[in-house]
């Protein structure tokens, strides 16, 4: 019995010792990593993997670039970084893939807390604004001047999105827009002219000829909408404008109950329920490729993939009009964190200038299918040749000057996209009245906008 007691005490002592060692370890290391506030410019991002370079004239600066490109896009991005690194010897860019747009933004949020931030970051249309409001990304005008970058050659629609109160915070890089896609074989079968419909009314006339029914089940729909999770609110944005409505005003007052916005929602509901020529799908690319839908609106980013994998010729066109033309932009751009040394900021800006110069913007567009962000890119010989080979891509680029930035309700209100998307699902799938649903959504968006508005007043006065 004696022996047993001793062992138990020994074990207890061991446990306590083990615990205090862990506690000591935690204490011992904490002073080494100062908990600097995020706005302290002196705090170097030492733990990001890339060693922090001390400024010495002539030494190379290594910058860490966090992005969301994987697959084919990731390869194109790495090729771009490699071209930059080979083009000069002062700056080395280290491209680090961080997951989806959402995961990259979350990692940056966590990194701000723990002081492990990159020197250059790719942020999507819905994420950059939150970091701007939080003061976590730098103003870029001064840096652009130092790097010899002139903003006047950028597509104004794309550039202005990243501008607040005359200051640039976010530079367009991988930008896309919605595009109307149609299956040319089915079009020919139905005896339709080989072009996208001019107006929704015209498409309404064509649609019955594109349908295929077997008894009561729809074998093939004329058109397919994505669901809330696959960003229906992005594609519906243009449709609201076409009907003369919008999600919100610039001052964050919501306009979901505007009669024209409701009219657009009623139109969406009718296409699926009353007219019955459209369906709602989780993966519209699959439905289109598989021939389950004759047409769709989808991102220009899908153009290359669809063209390669379709068993039929793919046709594209501008979005159909209603009262007006309406088409929004999307995708991601580049920003520079605010808590890094000036030397690294300038190095990051030098990379941005390279990646968005006339030639590189063209190479990126040809590799990926994103829009060229420079106006002059369209006239380069490489691009002209590419347009000749891919007239569909030219259509997408021609539509670009007609597009505009999305309403604040979707991109600047946290979760705004999903709030609107779920509302549209209620209208289309459950068949609830657009007016009642959008009244709810209006209230929900207004509530969700409050915290952002408060922060915004502090930042912008």
């Amino acid at each position: 019995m004696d022996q047993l007691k001793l062992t138990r005490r020994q074990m207890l002592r061991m446990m306590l010792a083990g615990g205090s060692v862990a506690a000591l370890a935690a204490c011992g290391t904490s002073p080494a990593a100062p908990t600097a506030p995020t706005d302290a410019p002196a705090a170097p991002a030492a733990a990001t993997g890339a060693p922090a370079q001390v400024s010495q004239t002539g030494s190379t600066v290594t910058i860490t670039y966090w992005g969301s490109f994987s697959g084919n896009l990731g390869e194109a991005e790495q090729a771009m970084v490699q071209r930059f690194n080979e083009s000069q010897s002062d700056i080395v860019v280290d491209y680090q893939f961080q997951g989806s747009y959402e995961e990259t933004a979350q990692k940056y949020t966590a990194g701000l807390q723990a002081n492990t931030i990159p020197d250059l970051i790719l942020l999507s249309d819905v994420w950059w604004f939150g970091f701007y409001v939080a003061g976590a990304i730098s103003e870029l005008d001064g840096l652009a001047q130092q790097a010899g970058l002139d903003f006047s050659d950028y597509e104004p629609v794309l550039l202005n999105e990243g501008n607040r109160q005359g200051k640039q915070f976010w530079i367009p890089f991988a930008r896309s827009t919605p595009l109307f896609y149609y299956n040319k074989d089915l079009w020919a079968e139905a005896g339709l002219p080989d072009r996208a419909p001019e107006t929704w009314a015209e498409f309404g006339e064509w649609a019955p000829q594109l349908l295929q029914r077997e008894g009561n089940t729809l074998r093939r729909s004329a058109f397919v909408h994505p669901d809330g999770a696959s960003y229906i609110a992005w594609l519906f944005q243009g449709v609201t404008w076409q009907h003369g409505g919008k999600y919100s005003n610039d001052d964050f007052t919501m306009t979901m109950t505007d009669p024209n916005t409701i009219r657009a929602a009623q139109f969406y509901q009718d296409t699926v329920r009353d007219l019955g020529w459209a369906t709602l799908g989780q993966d519209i690319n699959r439905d289109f490729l598989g021939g389950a839908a004759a047409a769709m609106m989808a991102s220009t980013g899908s153009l290359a993939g669809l063209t390669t994998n379709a068993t039929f010729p793919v046709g594209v066109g501008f979005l159909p009009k209603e009262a007006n033309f309406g088409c929004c932009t999307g995708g991601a751009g580049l920003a520079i964190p605010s808590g890094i040394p000036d030397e690294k900021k300038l190095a990051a800006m030098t990379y941005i200038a390279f990646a968005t110069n006339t030639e590189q913007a063209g190479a990126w567009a040809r590799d990926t299918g994103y829009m060229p962000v420079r106006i002059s890119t369209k006239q380069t010989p490489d691009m002209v040749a590419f347009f000749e080979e891919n007239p569909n891509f030219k259509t997408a680029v021609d539509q670009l000057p007609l597009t505009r930035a999305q309403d604040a309700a979707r991109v600047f209100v946290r979760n705004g996209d999903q709030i609107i998307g779920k509302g549209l699902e209620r209208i289309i799938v459950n068949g609830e009245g657009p007016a009642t649903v959008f009244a709810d959504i209006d209230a929900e968006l207004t509530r969700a906008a409050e915290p952002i508005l408060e922060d915004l007043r502090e930042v912008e006065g």
Partner: protein
Amino acid sequence: MALSEEITLTRTIETSWRTPRLWRFAGYLAMLATVIVIGLPVYWTVSAAFKTTGEIYRIPVTWLPTEPTLANFPQAWNAAPFERYYLNSFITTLGGMTAEVILAIMSAYALAFLRFPRKQLVFLLLLAALMIPVEITIVPNYLTVARLGWINTYAGIIIPGAAIAYGTFLLRQAFLSLPYEVIEAARVDGAGHLRIMFNVVMPMAQPAIVTMALLSMVAKWNDFLWPLLVTNTTNMRTLPIGIFWLRNSEGLINWGVIMAGSLFLIIPVLIVFLMVQRYIVDGIAAGAVKG
């Protein structure tokens, strides 16, 4: 002890010959349904790995690849440094699992067989930890790991997951269900705690320990979010992140290549499971105590 000391995992299932046929038929039906529900996605993964992208998107779906292709495998393998991902996955899984099993066995032994003050409280804390979803601990864990300077290191991936309440709980319940007479007999023979643990408790509880180790291994092997958060560079990344890299962020997804990559992930676990599964069935302390 107020809490139930039984564990369903180690209890042998009693098959009664008197079970009416109807019930047995229903049982088979349920098993069939389970196999289909679990097996279908696995089958789809395997067959899609041998299809072209065009065929994967084709409607109606094809169950057998009509034009089988092996092109997805080299394409997936060459798209990212999978050798490095394998190495990292082996290190983090092995390290994490070993730490978790050792800690779970020792803490479970203490909770099951030792008397010490506030033992119930410790157990209650353990139960409370069991109820907390892993996602909630991610932010504090990240901050701790970052301040320790463990971002982008193996320690950063392994240590926060080295002790899981679930493992301790599972083994404590298993240890308590062991025949106490055998342990008492060992004690009478003069065996100390370590000896009892290694030579008596562990062999008898082998199925539970192996089960727990396997669960731990699969969880760590497949873990995606935590390794993604604490690593930044390609040379520290693990297999699941490698597969994510194969996916396009916008536009069309090349599913054939992703499924081929998924097979890289699944196959080692499958092999280990096939090798180890007999230890789950064997090793039950049958006949250790005379009825």
